[in-house]
């Protein structure tokens, strides 16, 4: 139990890769929170997939003790957050649990789109912000220019920005001092009824569901009977503790403190992030405002390549969902692909992460169907239904109109690439909202249909700007447009997994591009294969994949029989990686690759 004036709670926020996790490493290390031999790079990125991709996906909390220059010891609770836009939700809820933010800006790159997005969120959460200019060890570092940019673009005072190299450790001491000096201590009343914020929860194979809490008022102790005000669920607290970063039990958590509790909660789904935890008896009357729940925005079908693995896939998906409340799923059957699941994700990276984990951790080969956003179908009878899967689009005679989700996208780009970025946004049916300059960089704000963005917008943006643009978005609402379902027919059979919603004006171009792509992706067969795109019954694009002409081994004598036979066996196994549609084998990767547009 620490006195409020000696606690500082803060999140570390930044654009992706600007060095948040590395800075967290140095803070942990310089305060001797972790023994030197247990130290490793991006210590908090513990998941395999985080280490492999070198990015943070889950926000992580650590409690460190810091003996400041004033001779006093402070308890610092830091939350390292992810930078990628798909996981922006992790950042916003982390911010609700703390009073301040370290805003890390890579001094070789400057302000990027997520820097802005994070600052706005921090301001929204009434945070004190300490700007950090990182990576000053690199020759390309330009602190003066970046500080100026922070003032110009963001409008916060950067004169006191701390110059840091999270790699070498320069500026870490100053950072710790600034945390103590500039960030406010938390407020709270120890004698008031318990009021704790449920910040996050996850499944731990030893402890079951672990709940991350921030105590606002009152004191939480082991053995307490608690109530979740939103869900009404009641539990006895089994264990409470803090992260150092390993879970370390404590006797109590008082106001201003951040820690965890466990309480024989069965699934992550039984907890609601943002909920208020109080004591069952003499609890508080006024819950905290809560968070807006995160909504999956991208949906796609996941099917096992080998249909006998459906049950394994179910198990894998259930296990992953146990720990990831933002991932949704329901069973789906497809004429061509058999049984699978329609899954919802926060974005494409989230989708990839889940798909990778299923393939690797559970060893199941997957077919991923065209990602789609959620459309709102307004029916002639006055009702509205959500469309998660283009294959389920009802007959148009019943549909009055279709609305699609729109986003507000913010793109920062060096001015020499501005033209390319504007063209890309226009091509994707964007409406320009704003265009301003900060030095050599332009900030463009566009209203775009989410459907034009989820798939390959970011890849295209990176390629037209040689990687110099950054991008962030928020959902802003739904709008009507002339949207139709485009079907793809391979050898005259509709392939539902390739159906997609498109804007009517762009349907021909999309259809043509799709047919051309498929023509390259589907291997030649022993017969010729027509590939068509159609709207309703009307064919709008067509290609023909000609029949295979040559596929025979030139030499085959006595010594080759064994080798040829084994090769055939291997090819038979390879064929299992394809799915048959009528008589046609379509390789797995075709389902995703066919949707990537080149412009």
């Amino acid at each position: 139990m620490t006195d409020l004036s000696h606690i500082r709670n803060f999140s570390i926020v930044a654009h992706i890769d600007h060095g948040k996790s590395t800075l967290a490493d140095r803070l942990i290390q310089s305060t001797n929170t972790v023994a030197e031999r247990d130290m490793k790079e991006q210590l908090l990125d513990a998941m395999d997939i985080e280490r492999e991709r070198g990015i943070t996906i889950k926000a992580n909390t650590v409690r460190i003790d810091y003996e400041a220059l004033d001779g006093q010891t402070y308890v610092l609770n830091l939350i390292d957050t992810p930078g990628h836009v798909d996981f922006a939700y992790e950042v916003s809820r982390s911010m609700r649990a703390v009073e301040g933010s370290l805003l890390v800006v890579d001094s070789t790159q400057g302000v990027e789109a997520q820097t802005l997005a994070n600052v706005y969120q921090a301001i929204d959460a009434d945070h004190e912000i300490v700007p950090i200019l990182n990576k000053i060890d690199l020759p390309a570092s330009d602190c003066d220019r970046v500080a100026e940019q922070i003032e110009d673009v963001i409008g916060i005072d950067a004169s006191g920005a701390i110059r840091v190299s999270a790699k070498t450790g320069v500026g870490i001491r100053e950072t710790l001092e600034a945390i103590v000096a500039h960030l406010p201590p938390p407020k709270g009343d120890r004698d008031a009824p318990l009021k704790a914020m449920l910040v996050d929860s996850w499944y731990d194979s030893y402890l079951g569901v672990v709940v991350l809490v921030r105590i606002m008022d009152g004191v939480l102790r082991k053995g307490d009977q608690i109530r979740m005000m939103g869900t009404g669920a009641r539990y006895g607290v089994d264990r409470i503790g803090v992260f150092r970063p390993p879970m370390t039990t404590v006797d109590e958590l008082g106001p201003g403190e951040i820690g965890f509790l466990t309480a024989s909660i069965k699934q992550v789904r039984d907890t609601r992030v943002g909920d208020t935890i109080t004591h069952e008896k003499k609890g508080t009357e006024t819950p905290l405002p809560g968070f807006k729940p995160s909504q999956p925005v991208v949906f796609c079908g996941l099917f096992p390549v080998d249909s006998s693995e459906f049950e394994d896939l179910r198990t894998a998906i259930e296990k992953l969902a146990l720990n990831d409340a933002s991932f949704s799923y329901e069973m789906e059957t497809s004429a061509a692909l058999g049984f699978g699941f329609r899954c919802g994700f926060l974005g494409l990276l989230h989708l990839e992460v889940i798909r990778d984990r299923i393939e690797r951790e559970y060893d199941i080969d997957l077919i991923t169907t065209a990602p789609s956003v959620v459309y709102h179908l307004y029916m002639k009878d006055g009702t509205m239904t959500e469309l998660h899967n283009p294959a389920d689009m009802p007959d148009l005679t019943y549909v009055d109109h279709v609305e699609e989700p729109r986003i507000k996208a913010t793109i920062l780009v060096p001015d020499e690439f501005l033209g390319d970025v504007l063209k890309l946004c226009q091509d994707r049916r964007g409406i320009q909202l704003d265009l301003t300059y900060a030095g050599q960089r332009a900030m463009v704000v566009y209203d775009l249909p989410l459907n034009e963005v989820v798939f390959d917008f970011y890849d295209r943006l990176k390629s037209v700007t040689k990687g110099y643009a950054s991008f962030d978005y928020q959902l802003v609402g739904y709008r009507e447009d002339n949207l139709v379902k485009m079907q793809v027919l391979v050898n005259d059979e509709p392939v539902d997994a390739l159906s997609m919603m498109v804007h009517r004006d762009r349907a021909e171009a999309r259809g043509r591009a799709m047919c051309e792509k498929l023509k390259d992706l589907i291997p030649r067969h022993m017969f010729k294969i027509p590939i068509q795109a159609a709207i309703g019954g009307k064919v709008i694009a067509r290609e023909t994949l000609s029949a295979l002409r040559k596929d025979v081994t030139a030499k085959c004598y006595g010594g080759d029989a064994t080798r040829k036979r084994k090769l055939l066996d291997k090819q038979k196994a390879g064929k299992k990686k394809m799915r048959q549609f009528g008589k046609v084998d379509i390789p797995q990767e075709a389902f995703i690759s066919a949707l990537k547009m080149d412009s």
Partner: protein
Amino acid sequence: MAEDWQEAGFGLYVHWPFCQAKCPYCDFNSHVVANVDQSRWADAFEREIARYAAETDGRVLRSIFFGGGTPSLMQPETVARVLNAARAAWPFANDCEITLEANPTSVEAARFGGYADAGINRISMGIQALNDDDLRRLGRLHDVADAMAAFDVARTLFDRVSFDLIYARQEQTLLGWKDELRRALDMAVDHLSLYQLTIEEGTAFGDRYAAGRLRGLPDEDRAADMWDVTQEVTSEAGFAAYEVSNHARPGAESRHNLLYWKSGDYVGIGPGAHGRLTLDGARWATETPLAPGAWIEKIETTGSGEALRETIDHADRLAEFLLMGLRVTDGIDEIRLSRLGGDVLFNNISKLVSLDLLERRDGHIRATPQGRAVLNSILREILSD
């Protein structure tokens, strides 16, 4: 009841694993070695023949094939010792075909007489191209003039002469190939092997190809055009294909190779040689060590050159019967197919018949002309479950 192999007979393959130089496209088991103690090799071959003879008593030998590597580097004396050992082991069929693969240089042509005396009655020459630039690109040690001279020598000494050409070479044009093929057919030859250049992994060409530095190779469509031209030109000259890459005047087909394609039994001796033997009702596959030194030392120390002997189960036997048999223009015998358990495949076969890729006639199943060009796909389809 007669055993299945008897439909095609019994043969002997002898592998000579040495070459003068390694050709960049070749993935055969061939090695460049300065000095070979040929009498030691003859001893080893003799011991192997005797060992197999003991297991195959009473069989009649239909054919013998000296393949390589470059068997025309063997001394005629070495060839004679092998043939004598074979004669002592098995009775020869009256028309026993005895082939030796030869590279067409003058040095080698000088040995042809000796081979004829030893009993060789058929020569298969690796001419590869009738164009000096292309021969150089293929890394060959002979030019067209050498090849012609060697061919003339062979023609006077042997009843039967065949040669090999490789097409779909770098920068080769359709017209160029047509012309080259016509010139080949004008030579007094009775058999031709026409191989489409295959880029094999682990060869010099394979490495260059992987690195994107082997230019001018035809794509699938151009290669298919060359194949079509090959079929046309040879058919016009009365040299229609009797197998995917082999063409002959009627009656001049290679009996030895037909024995492979028709799933006969054969003994394979020499480094890396494979054999197929039906013994006590089971069909066995044999293999020997690839490295020449390992093979010969194995024989000298253990008395046997075999590194592996295993039975081939029913499914694999059926697969081999099809993949070898459908290469032949005549196709496979339906009764043999049934006996080998192939009835379960008739559904798949019917589908391919309806696509006009296979045909069933006179108790045979054969690939149609367009089917033969995509035989690998056909095989995958027939054998799919």
